[in-house]
């Protein structure tokens, strides 16, 4: 069994308007030393499904079912005390906005040391020394002085480094990074991504990186999981998915972002409409109201039947959720020429 194995994960929230189906039947595997990128729009369930791993929905109105095996232990079966002991030591999370994830009244060092002292029987002095060592490791200059600073005295990039130090201080096997660079500038983003990769090599941890930026995924991830309306719609090795995407939603994500290199004649093709409500997702394929290719499927199948995850035509270890019979041909002949005319020439 893989280091992390999520099977048929379901997260529902009961509200006055009905049940919000935030995650529906999500399954994936992740080994140590590997990175999984989860991509999707806001409200696609990517954060919700990942916080379920840490047990952050316990004590809320969420209904979580399925199986989450971390190192052979089903995290959904163990009690609150056991998961509390794992949280921070075996698995940790890096949040999007470090300013709101840190307590403004405590020094940065205090907050990082707390994570260490809870899981290790050490004196304050030892914890402080370990904190300074960790701050130094994540590249904060003069860590012995900055350890006594408050979060507001740090810049955005440094705060995110401190968050990473906090997450990694117990050397966890699994790190979940929820939009770790979205609030940062590109140059700082590049620094943080480099740092995460260095640390991963050093600690051999498994990383889940949640993002809406395919560029970040392309740089970081070994595997990619594309989520839409709470479901996995495409899953496989990163390069496979970027080169041979077979789900129209993934095409939409690729064609709606402009690029800094290549042809300026490349067109920007938006995905029309808006993401569906998770209260009442559309029947059939959840993406069908926004899909340009549903008419290619005979018998109105897209509007009536939810497609299963099936192996991609291009082969590889790659599954997609789409009724199209020949998605690889449609992509190569209809989508790619519009969004990357120069790439076609390069390959030819």
């Amino acid at each position, binding site marked *: 069994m893989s280091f992390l194995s999520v099977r048929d994960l379901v997260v529902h929230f009961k509200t006055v*308007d009905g049940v919000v189906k935030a995650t529906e039947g999500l399954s994936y595997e992740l080994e140590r030393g590997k990175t999984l990128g989860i991509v999707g*729009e*806001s409200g696609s369930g990517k954060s919700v499904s990942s916080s379920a791993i840490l047990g952050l929905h316990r004590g809320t109105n969420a209904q979580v079912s399925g199986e989450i095996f971390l190192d052979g232990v089903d995290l959904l079966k163990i009690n609150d005390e056991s998961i509390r002991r794992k949280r921070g030591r075996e698995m940790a999370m890096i949040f999007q906005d470090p300013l709101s994830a840190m307590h403004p009244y405590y020094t940065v060092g205090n907050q990082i040391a707390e994570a260490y002292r809870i899981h290790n029987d050490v004196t304050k002095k030892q914890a402080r020394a370990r904190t300074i060592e960790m701050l130094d490791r994540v590249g904060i*200059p003069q860590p012995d002085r900055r350890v006594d600073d408050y979060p507001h005295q740090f*810049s*955005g*990039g*440094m705060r995110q480094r401190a968050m990473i130090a906090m997450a990694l201080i117990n050397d966890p096997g699994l790190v979940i990074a929820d939009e770790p660079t979205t609030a940062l*500038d*590109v*140059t*700082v*983003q*590049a*620094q943080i*991504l*480099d740092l995460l990769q260095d640390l991963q090599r050093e600690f051999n941890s498994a990383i889940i990186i949640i993002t*809406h*930026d*395919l*560029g*970040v995924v*392309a*740089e970081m991830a070994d595997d990619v999981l594309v989520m839409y309306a709470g479901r996995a719609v495409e899953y496989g090795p*990163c*390069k496979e998915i*970027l*080169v041979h995407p077979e789900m129209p939603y993934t095409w939409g*994500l*690729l*064609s*709606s*972002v*402009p*690029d*800094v*290199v*290549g042809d*300026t*004649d*490349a*067109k*920007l*093709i*938006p*995905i*029309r*409409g*808006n*993401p*569906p*409500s998770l*209260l*009442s*997702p*559309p029947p059939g394929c959840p993406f069908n*109201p926004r899909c340009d290719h549903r008419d290619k499927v005979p018998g109105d199948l897209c509007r009536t039947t939810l497609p299963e995850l099936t192996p991609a035509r291009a082969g590889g270890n790659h599954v997609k959720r789409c009724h199209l019979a020949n998605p690889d041909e449609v992509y190569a002949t209809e989508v790619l020429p*519009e969004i990357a005319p120069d*790439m076609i020439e390069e*390959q030819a």
Partner: protein
Amino acid sequence: MTDMDPATVPVAEPSAIRAHAASTLDPNAKQVLSVENLRMYFPVKANGIIRRTVGHVQAVDGVSFQVPEGGSLGLVGESGCGKSTTGRLIARLLEPTAGKIEFQGRDIAHLSSRELMPLRREIQMIFQDPATSLNPRHTVGAIVGAALEIHKVVPKDKIIPRVQELLEVVGLNPEHYNRYPHEFSGGQRQRIGIARALTLQPKLLVADEPVSALDVSIQAQVINLLQDVQREFGIGFLFIAHDLAVVRHFCPEVAVMYLGKIVEIADRDTLYNRPHHPYTQALLSAVPDVKQAAIGGRRERIRLEGDVPSPILPPSGCRFRTRCQFAQEICAKVEPPLLQICRRHKVACHFAGELGHHPSTPVTMGVCGVDEHGSPVAGETPDVQLNEAGFSDTWLDLQTGQRTGA
């Protein structure tokens, strides 16, 4: 709220479905806006009873550029570089400390609010966050119609029809004028913001990060809409964003800011393919790139160490020198002028050159009247016309070191 469920309500979005290519540059267009040597210093006050001014945040420090009629100029840079302040100065939400803002040939930098009133019609702004820039207690009709009412452009009974017309232009259902902002999704709210900016048919739109708060699939819809309205109404855009790829798609000409100064300004192809400033090069190399990664290539990344220095006490000489791998003695002593090196390309660097071809001696020695180490040379006078807006017919050729023309 539930009846606005986007999955069930068909939303009129005629402009969103069309695919759009990038816009192009017209080098002979008239300029609608010309900014010269613009400065904005915010005072920093001491604590205590007597709030002495102890320093200034040099948010914008001598910025010059032009926006063509119906064209667009992109302004990019990291947070804190002064790009938003520049936008607010041009919309005259702030009064500049010094400098000229020439709008249609008239300097508006220090006009009083009464004198500005008619100009407010001509210059409008689109804000970053559509959730906070729309009054939650007003209906869309009131928000978009407010400008029509204040400026008395149409009779009172014609306001609603005009608002509906505008809602249709931006791809919203005109029947929804009675709804409140919270009943719309993020992308739709940004469309309301755009409709509001269009009500008075402005000549210049300052778009401050218009898409950065939106989801990627919605970003493209809004960018295409902005291109449509630009084409239809001939509006000049100052497009402020930190996303280099979005700016590349929208703006044929782009200026890069660092710590309150423009370090490089050029047409799109030059700036993105042959940047000459080390900061622009670093910025571009830091952008993660899907399509490159998809075909297996990955560009070499230039690592920028550390953070942007404080704008209260910026480094002497070149402001980028503390993070620049090419910095030498001269960079600490002499501030590099924004030097025109090609027909539409200006760069502020002593060692300007394409990546991998940075010269070993400063290219600015002649124009600054200094030697290699930045010490003044007796008898040499610095070239004074270095901070004007726009481009001249002659420029300094980097290969020959001579002034050349077309």
